């Protein structure tokens, strides 16, 4: 069964159907060495969000959204993240990626006190499907309150001659990439009564959001999901697709799948990866996807794809 009623997404300030395809690429500037630099502004603000119909959660957010903006860049680009903390607690952004100790976003290196600012700078590498989150203490609380998001680094086709076509299909902005339906999904959960157990599970925050409003999939277009697990308290989470199988790229750091033809993958806390599949040979209809921990599914992490014929 399901939660009763609807969430006011206008009041939340983020739309669960739009956040599937919203990528933040930052403002682009040229560096003296000829490379491009992408600058992002991230702000920590606290905000009450509705995570299930009628259930409000006092969240800590990046830019007012949970999950935070899905950041996207290309391998080798310079990235500059201006982080301002408007909350009453110290926060940081700890990126999973290759960077120096000074830029790690941990206590002593980039944890920002209320009202202050810090600039994280590093090269986007390695390519893959990564994750960022607050690393202030206590860690569990800073993560489960809502400070996390996707950080996707697209492969540079020039650096991967042997799989240049695959790399091009992953690189945002190419015609090959436009042939895919790409979706950003963060599996998350909320401990509404602060007893270190989650009451609400979801993909992209709102319980049952994609059951009530299924994600429309064009039958002919392959699907790529950037998936991360931000759930706290439960050691693992999972993704199971109905009526179909997919290829899986654990952490997204390879151009060939790490698992082929599977319909279920598990992710521990902070793990993420890329799923690729197609409904080309399927009849249109509703195809479920959900955590195969039935408990999570019944607590909100239950979703639907609505596969439709290509519209002319």
């Amino acid at each position, binding site marked *: *069964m*399901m*939660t*009763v009623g609807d969430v006011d997404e206008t009041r939340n300030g983020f739309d669960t159907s739009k956040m599937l395809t919203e990528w933040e690429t930052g403002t682009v500037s040229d560096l003296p060495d000829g490379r491009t630099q992408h600058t992002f502004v991230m702000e920590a603000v606290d905000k009450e969000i509705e995570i*299930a*119909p*009628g*259930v*409000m*959660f006092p969240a800590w957010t990046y830019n007012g959204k949970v999950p935070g903006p899905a950041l996207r860049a290309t391998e080798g680009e310079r990235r500059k993240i201006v982080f301002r903390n408007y909350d009453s607690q110290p926060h940081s952004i700890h990126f999973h990626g290759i960077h120096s100790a000074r830029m790690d976003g941990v206590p002593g290196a980039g944890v920002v006190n209320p009202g202050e600012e810090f600039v994280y700078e590093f090269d986007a590498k390695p390519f893959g499907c990564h994750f960022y989150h607050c690393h202030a203490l206590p860690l569990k609380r800073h993560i489960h309150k809502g400070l996390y998001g996707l950080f996707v680094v697209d492969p540079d086709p020039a650096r991967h001659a042997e799989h240049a076509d695959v790399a091009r299909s992953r690189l945002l902005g190419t015609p090959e990439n436009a042939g895919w339906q790409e979706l950003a999904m963060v599996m998350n959960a*909320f401990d*509404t*009564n602060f*007893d270190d157990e989650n*009451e609400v599970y979801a993909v992209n925050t709102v*319980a*049952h959001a994609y059951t009530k409003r299924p994600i429309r999939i064009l039958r002919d277009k392959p699907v790529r999901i950037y998936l991360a697990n931000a759930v706290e308290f439960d050691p693992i989470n999972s993704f199971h697709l109905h009526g179909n199988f997919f290829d899986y790229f654990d952490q997204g750091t390879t151009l060939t799948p790490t698992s082929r033809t599977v319909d279920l993958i598990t992710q521990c806390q902070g793990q993420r990866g890329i799923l690729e599949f197609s409904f080309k040979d399927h009849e249109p209809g509703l195809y479920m996807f959900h955590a195969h921990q039935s*408990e999570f599914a*019944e*607590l*909100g992490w239950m979703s639907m794809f609505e596969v439709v014929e290509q519209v002319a």
Partner: protein
Amino acid sequence: MNDVSSTQTITAAPSVPQPSRVALAWLILPLAVLALAITWLVTANPLRTFDNGAPPVENLTFERTVLSSDGIEILVRAGGSEPMTIAQVLVDDAYWQFAQEPSGPLARGATAWIRLPYPWVLGEAHAFKIITNTGATFEHEIAVAVPTPVSSVSMLSAQALLGVIVGIVPVAIGLMFYPALRGVGRNGMNFLLAMTVGLLAFLMIDAAGEAFDLAGESAAIFQGQAMVALAAAASFLLLIAAGRRGGTPAGLTLATFIALGIGLHNLGEGLAIGAAFAAGAAGLGTFLVLGFTIHNITEGIDIAAPMLKKRPPLWTFPALTLLAGGPAVLGLWIGSLAYAPQWSALALAIGAGAYLARSDGRGAAALLSWPVMAGLAFGVTFMYGTAMLVKV
């Protein structure tokens, strides 16, 4: 008691000077200050300095569950500092469709039915969790799910029969010992009276304990513990005061008080058994019913004991039996139809107060004689022993 005090006021009045207008004005002053204080509190809201932004305190008590082929219905009572809003309902850790009636926020003390079309499973446990809009959760468990009996003539008559067996029959049997009891000598008499004191002491402790247990389950707004203590004290004082009108209660008067106390106790127990039926929790086997019956035979002896010196008219025996045992039937009915723990607690507390009233006025001098000691010990032991048959 009331007439006594009012007579005193009237006779005392002439010696006191007539209240003057000045005296009246002195009455108005404090009231005016109170009105001013309230106005200031409401308009200036000086308490806002204490508002630390914390969410309001919420509380929710589960009072009744009804299981039927349509699903599950739960009666909840709100006890928050502000009206509270039920956002979602989970059954067995899954969000479930539900309807709230009446809908909307629940004011402090208000109740609502939560109706869930849930396919519950016979004999299994089911857990409920209610999440409010602030994310607070309230949990309740049905240990063994069985369909809630639908009130029908056949069910009510079956319950009446059960009430007669556990309430009326044992009292009647106990009273039938009357002729035999009259034949005992002075020591035997002391033994019997002391035994009833022991029996009643046990019943008082038992009833008070049960009352406090049930009070703990009831909504905080009823302040269960205080309610039980006050109800027991009130019934104790009332019975003492009423009894003293004709001197220390003895004979038929005392027997009537004991019967009344036992009646209230049986009402409370009837409520609890009826509610257990309604909740499906009672696996009342023959053995358990038998245990109750034997346990309660002593109630009849309790009633008979004070009347041994002077035989009352015959009609008083059935009347006392009905007074002491009849409420069991009433309790079973009410308990199965409309039950909340606070009502059972209240009835048991009143009964406990009545037992206490009975123990009052016993001469301490006689306490040390062997028949009395033996009687007390036997009474308590017998009750404790037979209670072993029924405690689950």
